[in-house]
C-alpha cells in the first residue's frame, strides 16, 4: 500500500462516516460506491463491486425512520474491499466467505459507535442548554463538533475494526500451519465467557470480586 492509498483510505473512511451520520447525504457512504472507489484505486474492480453490492443489501433492507439507527453497511463495504485489496483474503473460496462472516459480525460493534456519536451530540446540546448559550456561534460550534466527531469516528473505528478482521484472518491462516492444540484456544474462550457470566450474576461488584479472588486462591493452593 502506497502513501497515496493510505491518504485515500483515511479520507474515504472519514467521509463515509460523515455522509451517513452527520449529513451531506450525497450517498458517498453507500457500500457500492465506497467499494467501487477502492476497487478503482487498487485495481480490483469486479470483486470489490460485488462485495459492495452484497453489503448494499443490508442497508437497503432497512429504512432510517425516526430514531432508528441503521446497521453500518458503509463500514462493511469499506472493510471488505480494503481486506481484499490489501491481500488479506487469499483468492480461495473459504477465505472470502469467512471474511464476509467476520465483517458482518463486526457491523454490530461499529453501529454501536454510531449510537455513541448521537449520545455525544446529546451531551453537547444538554450542556449548551444548561449554560443557556443560544447565540449562533454556539449553534455553529455544535454543528462543527458533530461533523468532526463523525469524521474521526469513521477514520478510527472503520480502520481499527478492519485491522482486527485483517489480523484474525491472517492469524487463522498462520496457525493453520502450526501444530498448536485446539484446547489452548478453547480454554481462552472459556475464560472470556466466564467474564460475561461474572457480570450477569447478581451482587455488588466489589463483593463478587472478593469472592472470585478468594475462590481462585483457595482452589489454587488447596487442590
Amino acid at each position, binding site marked *: 500500500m502506497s502513501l497515496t492509498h493510505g491518504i485515500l483510505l483515511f479520507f474515504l473512511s472519514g467521509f463515509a462516516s460523515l455522509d451517513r451520520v452527520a*449529513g451531506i447525504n450525497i450517498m458517498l457512504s453507500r457500500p457500492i460506491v465506497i467499494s467501487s472507489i477502492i476497487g478503482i484505486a487498487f485495481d480490483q474492480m469486479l470483486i470489490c463491486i460485488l462485495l459492495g453490492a452484497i453489503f448494499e443489501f443490508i442497508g437497503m433492507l432497512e429504512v*432510517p425512520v425516526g430514531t432508528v439507527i441503521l446497521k453500518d453497511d458503509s463500514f462493511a463495504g469499506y472493510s471488505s474491499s480494503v481486506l481484499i485489496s490489501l491481500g488479506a483474503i487469499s483468492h480461495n473460496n473459504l477465505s472470502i466467505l469467512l471474511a464476509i462472516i467476520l465483517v458482518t459480525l463486526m457491523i454490530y460493534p461499529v453501529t454501536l459507535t454510531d449510537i455513541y456519536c448521537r449520545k455525544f451530540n446529546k451531551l453537547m446540546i444538554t450542556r449548551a442548554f444548561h449554560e443557556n448559550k443560544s447565540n449562533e456561534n454556539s449553534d455553529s460550534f455544535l454543528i462543527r463538533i*458533530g461533523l468532526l466527531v463523525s469524521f474521526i469516528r469513521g477514520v478510527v473505528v472503520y480502520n481499527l475494526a478492519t485491522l482486527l478482521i485483517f489480523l484474525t484472518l491472517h492469524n487463522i491462516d498462520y496457525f493453520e500451519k502450526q501444530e498448536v492444540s485446539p484446547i489452548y484456544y478453547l480454554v481462552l474462550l472459556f475464560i472470556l465467557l466466564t467474564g460475561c457470566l461474572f457480570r450477569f450474576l447478581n451482587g455488588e461488584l466489589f463483593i463478587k470480586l472478593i469472592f472470585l479472588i478468594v475462590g481462585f486462591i483457595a482452589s489454587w493452593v488447596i487442590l
Partner: protein
Amino acid sequence: MGDIMKLLWKALPTLVRSIFYQANWNIENMQGTGFSWLLKDLSKRFNIGVGDIKGNERADYFNTNPYFVTFMLGMFLKEAESGKAVDQYKSTYASVFGALGDTFFWHSLRPLTFFLSLFIALYEPMFAMFFYLIFFNIFNIGFKFLGFYLGYNYGTNVIELFRTVSFANWSNVADIASIFFMGGTLAITIKYISNSEAINSISIFKTAIFFIAGFATSKYVSAPFTLIIGVMIVTVVMLLQNI
C-alpha cells in the same frame, strides 16, 4: 425564471449549509439544533428579525427527512414575510415530509439507483459508481433547490403540489421499476457466469432455490444474519459439489 434564480442565489449559502444541518442529530431534540441554525442564517440573509420567525427554538423537537428540509425553510420564509404564523404547521409538515421522504428516498430510490447502476456495471464497472452518485443526487439537489423555491411559492399549501403530482405513489412506481431491473440483473449475471469458462455455472434451478431461500429467511431474521446463513448454505453447496 429570473425571480427563481434571484431567490435561490440569495438563499444559496443557507441551502449549502443545509447539507450539514443534521450534524448535531441526537435523541433529545433530533435535528432541532440544525433547523434552528438554518432558520437563523436564513433570517440574516433576508433581513428578517429572528424573532419574526416563530418556532425556531433550538430546544424544539424537529425531525424530518433531510432532503425535504428546504421545503420547510422556504415555507417559513414566506410566512415570516407575510406575517402569518407558521409554527403551528411545523410539526405537521415535519412529520409528513418525514413520511413522504423516508418512503421515497430511503425505501425506494436507493434500491432503484442500486439496480440501475448494477445494470450499468455489467457493461462497464467503472461507470456504476458515477451513475449511482449522479442519479441519486439529481433528486437530492433537485429537491434541495427546487424545494426551497416551491416551499416559498406555495407556503403552507405546498402539500397540494405533492397531491397534484401524486408523490405518495412515486415510491410504488420506483419499487416496481426496481423489481424489473432486479430480474434483468439476475438474468444477465447468470448468463455471464454460465458463459465464462473459469467459473462454475449457475443453473436457473439453483438461482430459484437461492432466491426462495432469501425470500423465506428474510421473514424471520434480520439482513446481516440472512447473509451469514447464506454463507453457510454456500459452503454446503461447495461441499456437495466436491464430493
